[in-house]
Every structure is written in structure tokens, then in C-alpha cells.
């Protein structure tokens, strides 16, 4: 059972420090989800569905690529659910068999997302009755993306994760620019800069923890 080097010490302090670093990285890799798996599904979702939305409902009401009207929204819904379930599983796997404050933080944060989206959906559904179609798209897209940006920034306050803050701030800024630019353009900006930002965030997060 006990291997021979159990009580073995180190030839030099540098070796001990290297072991500490190795083990630290190893543990982090186990107990925190792979950033690629957490961000990329959302990045792909935004890229594809906002991309479709831009092509179908382009600036000034133009249709750049002909496709059924319902396609962008159905795609968005399908991809959102898939990404949500997938990242939920990945996140839960990383924190399994660990209990305490961090799992309560994680749960509170997860519930915040659901609460935020539900609230906005109810508000937009109610208000949207009065809006022309293109403004309706802007309201939903702009509102939801704003929520995502803010939640990432808040998440960085919980986990002291600078990358996450930068991502949230980036999404917030890009979203506001898109909204000001107007319907159609918003979808393009969010697809490219927002979706792209998520893909980059996953990559950077992954490189940082290697």
C-alpha cells in the first residue's frame, strides 16, 4: 500500500516548490471546470444564432440570406438549452463531492441566472406586445446579452476571476454599441464580438491554468 517514497523529502527547496506548483495545477484542473467547456458552447451558440438572425433580419429590414423566419429563434432556443445543460453538467462534475460555502455560492449564482432570464422574459413578453418586430428583436437580444455581461462581471466578484470580469465588461460594452447601432447590426456585433469574446475567454482561461 504505502509506497516507498512516502516519507521521502526533497533534495532541494526548489524541488519542493515545483511539486507544490504541480500539485496546485493538478488540483485546480480537477476541481474547476475546463474554461473551454464552460465558454465555448455559449460562444458557438451566439455565433451561430445571432449570425443567423443577422442574415435573416439584417439592417434596415433587409434579408441577406433567405431562410424561414422561425429558423434563427428556434436555433437560438435549441442551442441555448444544449449549452445550458452541457455547462451545467461540466460545472457540477468539477465540484462533485465537495461541499461547503463554494457549492452554495455556485448554487446561488446559478439560480441568479435563471431568475434573471425569467424576469426579463416576462417583462419583455409583456412590453413587447407594443413593439414593432425589429425593435422586439433588439429588446430581447440587447436585454438578454446585457444580463449575461453583468452576470459574468458579478461572477468575477464571487470567484475573484479577472478573466471573467474582462469578459463580462467586454460583452456589456459590445452589447451597448450594438443596441445603439440598431436592429440587425446588433445581431452582427453580438455574434462576432460577443460570441468571439466567449471563444477567446475559453481559450485564455484554458491557457492560464495549464
Amino acid at each position, binding site marked *: *500500500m*504505502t*509506497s516507498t*517514497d*512516502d*516519507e*521521502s*523529502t*526533497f*533534495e*532541494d*527547496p*526548489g524541488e*519542493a*516548490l515545483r*511539486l*507544490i506548483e504541480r*500539485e*496546485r495545477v*493538478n*488540483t*485546480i484542473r*480537477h*476541481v*474547476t471546470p475546463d474554461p473551454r467547456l464552460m465558454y465555448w458552447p455559449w460562444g458557438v451558440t451566439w455565433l451561430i444564432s445571432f449570425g443567423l438572425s443577422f442574415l435573416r433580419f439584417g439592417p434596415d429590414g433587409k434579408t441577406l440570406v433567405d431562410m424561414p423566419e422561425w429558423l434563427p429563434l428556434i436555433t437560438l432556443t435549441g442551442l441555448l438549452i444544449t449549452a445550458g445543460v452541457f455547462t451545467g453538467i461540466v460545472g457540477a462534475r468539477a465540484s*462533485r*463531492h*465537495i*461541499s*461547503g*460555502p*463554494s*457549492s452554495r455560492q455556485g448554487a446561488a449564482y446559478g439560480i441568479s441566472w435563471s431568475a434573471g432570464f425569467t424576469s426579463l422574459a416576462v417583462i419583455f413578453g409583456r412590453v413587447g406586445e407594443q413593439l414593432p418586430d425589429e425593435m422586439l428583436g433588439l429588446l430581447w437580444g440587447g436585454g438578454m446579452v446585457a444580463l449575461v455581461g453583468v452576470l459574468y462581471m458579478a461572477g468575477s466578484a464571487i*470567484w*475573484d*476571476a479577472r478573466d471573467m470580469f474582462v469578459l463580462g465588461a467586454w460583452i456589456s460594452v459590445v452589447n451597448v454599441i450594438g443596441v445603439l447601432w440598431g436592429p440587425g447590426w446588433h445581431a452582427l456585433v453580438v455574434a462576432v464580438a460577443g460570441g468571439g469574446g466567449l471563444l477567446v475567454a475559453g481559450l485564455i482561461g484554458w491557457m492560464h491554468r495549464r
Partner: protein
Amino acid sequence: MTRPDNDAPSTASPHNNAPPATSPDNDTPSTTSPDNDTPSTTNPDNDALSATSPDNNAQSGAGPGDDPRSTGGPTGDPAPAAGPNGALPDLDPVIHAQARLRVVVALSQLPGGDRITFPRLQEILRMTAGNLSVHLRKLEEAGYVEVTKTHRGRTPATLVHLTQRGRFAFEEYVTALRTLIDPGEDQS
């Protein structure tokens, strides 16, 4: 996500009051060593530390009665500034063993207050159950780790976490290591 180890060096006081209550018989080195704080020596790291390794008995934590100072011997040169015990007393014998160091590092990465189940810890560390429990026991005896039995639903679960004292001891250990590598570093 990176925390205690990185902050540690800044606090750096070369006087490590070693593991306070750990294992009574090991107290000796910490109490001696007034010359402790001057690792300023010539050949600091290697010589100094290698003093610890050759003789593992002293490291075995609760190891009864063996005078830890005997470890000072192997380097052979009593004179130079580091002194025979210059470096040794700084390294907490409970932590200064590969397997236990790995356990402590892994636990230190969990946010304070979090507890991890035994099998999950075992999976992260890739250690056998027997091996891990031996080392956990030693860490527990030193007050560095708390092991609690509980139930998750119907199945019994063993939860492990690093105590405040364990966290502190680990920080001190890292500080000591850095001091050994670069004695001047935190003297300024």
C-alpha cells in the same frame, strides 16, 4: 483560485515558529535555532536542505524520541553561517514529506470552509486509500486537517478539510522554502 501560496512569501518572517503543537518531540528544533534567521550564507539552498533528506526518520512526524538535530549532521560542516541547523528547523516535518505535502497542497486549493470527500481527494491525488488515510491521520494528529464522518443520503461519507492551522502551517512552509532558495529575498 490561486491563493495562499502566492501571497505567502510577502509575509515572510524568517522566524518560523514551526509547527507549534504538532508532535511534541519535534519541538526541539524550533526552540533552538536562534541562528535561524540568517540563511544569508554562502551555499544556501542545496547544502542547507540536503541536510534534511538523508535521514528520514526524523521526518516521520511523530517519530518517537529521535533527536531531530541529528539530521544536521550529514552536511558535515558545522561552522558556516547557516549553522548545523540553520535551515532545518524552518521546514515543518509534518508537511515536509512528499505525500503529505501533496495532500496539503490539494486541500489548500479548496476555498476555506469547503470539505471534500475522501474518495474524491484520493482521485485527485492518485493515492491508494490506505496510503492516503495514513497521511491524513498524521496531518490530523498535527491539527492541520479535520476529518469528519457524515452521511450523504444513506451512504456514509468521510469529509476532509484543511484547518486554519493547516493553512497557516502550509504558508509558513512555503515561506521557509523560498527563504532557503533566496535568503535575501524577504530580508529587505
